[in-house]
């Protein structure tokens, strides 16, 4: 981290001070807080914040300065909450596996049109990688290191230290968001996500959480099979689940 700090300082033409780092941590803490609020809102009222919109709001965070993105997220929340939208009898699902190569927007729309409310996902995980506030007092590099090591999201690109932990993050995500099932949507050739999938599926099966799986590519254009599969999955949850 110190090397990274030095290199970034060279690029910026001035050394990065502890004070500047603490200020930056505070800005990003606020951005993560706003994104968490957005996710909580969508999990509570997915008909009010469809993922096809939420995704675009998040995607804007990849190009906007964090302060502007935080404002955009809050503006969106206020705007969407101000207009009542129809609530449908959709299946509440967690979408997982899309943490690296991002899916086309059409894929998200297709899943929603097929009768699914996406109540949690791992899109652009960078925005939610750190799970808690990073301390703004003390040594900023140490605080960031601790946050990355001990308070960060679990995803397929990480090594799970203990076998028993496998799948627990996903299970908790489904539980917390009140999901009725999980859709695995990983990009083709993403070894971490695709190799992780059977292990996660085994955990979901053990806990009787329904799931389905398919692959996509960034330039996938044919959505009919995905809509078909997601629709069948949603039907199976709504029509035939034990609940």
């Amino acid at each position, binding site marked *: 981290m110190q090397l990274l700090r030095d290199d970034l300082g060279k690029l910026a033409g001035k050394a990065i001070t502890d004070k500047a780092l603490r200020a930056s941590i505070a800005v990003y803490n606020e951005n993560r807080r706003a994104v968490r609020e957005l996710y909580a809102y969508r999990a509570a009222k997915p008909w009010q914040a469809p993922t096809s919109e939420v995704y675009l709001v998040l995607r804007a965070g990849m190009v906007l300065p964090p302060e502007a993105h935080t404002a955009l997220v809050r503006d969106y929340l206020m705007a969407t909450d101000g207009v009542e939208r129809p609530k449908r009898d959709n299946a509440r699902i967690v979408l997982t596996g899309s943490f690296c190569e991002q899916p086309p927007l059409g894929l998200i729309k297709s899943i929603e049109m097929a009768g699914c409310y996406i109540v949690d996902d791992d899109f652009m995980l960078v925005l939610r990688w750190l799970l808690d506030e990073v301390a703004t007092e003390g040594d900023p590099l140490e605080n960031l290191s601790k946050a990355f090591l001990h308070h960060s999201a679990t995803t397929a690109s990480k090594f*799970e230290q203990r076998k028993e932990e496998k799948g627990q993050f996903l299970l908790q995500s489904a539980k917390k968001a009140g999901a009725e099932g999980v859709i695995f949507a990983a990009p083709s050739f993403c070894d971490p996500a695709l*190799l992780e*999938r059977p292990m996660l599926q085994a955990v979901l099966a053990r806990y009787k959480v329904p799931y389905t799986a398919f692959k996509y590519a960034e330039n996938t254009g044919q959505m009919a099979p995905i809509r078909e599969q997601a629709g069948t999955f949603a039907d199976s949850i709504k029509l035939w689940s034990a609940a």
Partner: protein
Amino acid sequence: MSTPVQMMPSQPSKKPVAPVQKEDAMLLQKEMINRNYHELAIAHDQGKKICATFVPGNLNELVMCFDLARSLPETNALQSGLRKKSGKFIMDAERDGHSEDVCTYVKTDLGMMLNGDIGPTGEPLPKPDLLLLSYTGCFTFMKWFELIRQKYGSEAVMLHVPYQGDGRVSKNMRDYVVKQLKETVIPALERVSGVKFDIDRLREYMKESVKAEEDLVHVLHSAKHRPSPIDGYFGAVYYIGPIFTAFRGTPEATQYYRVLRDEIDQRVREGKGPITPEGELTDEKYRLVVEGPPNWTSFRDFWKMFYDEGAVVVASTYAKVGGTYDFGFRHDPEHPLESLAEYCLGCYTNLNFPQRIDMICKYINEYQADGLLINSIKSCNSFSAGQLLILREVEKRTGKPAAFIESDLVDPRYFSAANIKNRLESYFQMIKAKRAAQAAPSATPATMH
């Protein structure tokens, strides 16, 4: 010396099978690899524990300090590929829920488990007691061992090796790896084996490693001769077998590399070309550098496409996945843990693109190669990512033609012999045309005088 070996046909056939030519060292290495499989098969019966680990960044000398038998899943998979067993294993793994796009080594390994854990030689391959995950630039390794752990419940310990993103090894990086060795890896090895770590034992193994490394490098460098006495890709996979797997640091490996070196020196003295399965290659027409692993399921057919055209691979990056010894690295018995750290950090898959490109350009120049051939492996992201960039940059820097073919490691469905042969033939024609074009300008002034 070379010895004809009668091959047993895999299926009844009316055609007589031609005896395969092999160097004595090739036969010796096969014997060693088979012996290791036997030792693995009887390890538990003899009260020995088994450690599974990967080829790049394998800590063989360290693992031997704990009397553990060593199993290398990539080697198991490629051996299954060579023996035509991988196709079924892969399909069984896919039926068990694995994607068709992921690493086929992993699926071969998982398929082998689904088929009763019978190893490539037909003997049982018992469950590993420890999964030593040396992470050197390949994400798949992490998931592979998580999958095995899921199946067997074996303890897994990870050695995180930082990627050489800046193209160098810093003191921090080395210290970080050494710290993990001391605080995580060695305690896990002690716990699983019940054997106390003895650093002097490690030093003794490393002294053996150095001897073998010296001889291996001598053999690889012999390809600078014209004709080259070795094939630095198809032949080299036999040469790297012992040192990249369970034998580095053993007296058997030292002996193997001494025998190999003597054989190759003899070939150099006699001005001979490499031994191919159909005998000595007597007419070296093309000298190539190859990037990417070979295809194992059609290994001999693939090789034949080269030697039939008089093409010899003088250097390959694949022959460096288990250590870049030809760039000077040697295990250092005086600083054993630091040296293991340096070894892991310097593995080919842990190098960044500029380093890989430098390496290939150096090979092309030093081995006087006619060009670069990339065998892009469909299911191996750690090798295939960025290969087109490598190709363009190497062409630009060396002015030598490069070509790109595609196949797979152990999935027979992705080896298209006709396509590959066509591409290779076109490539050889391209080299010929380039040579003619280069000869032309110098010929023109000559005729003017």
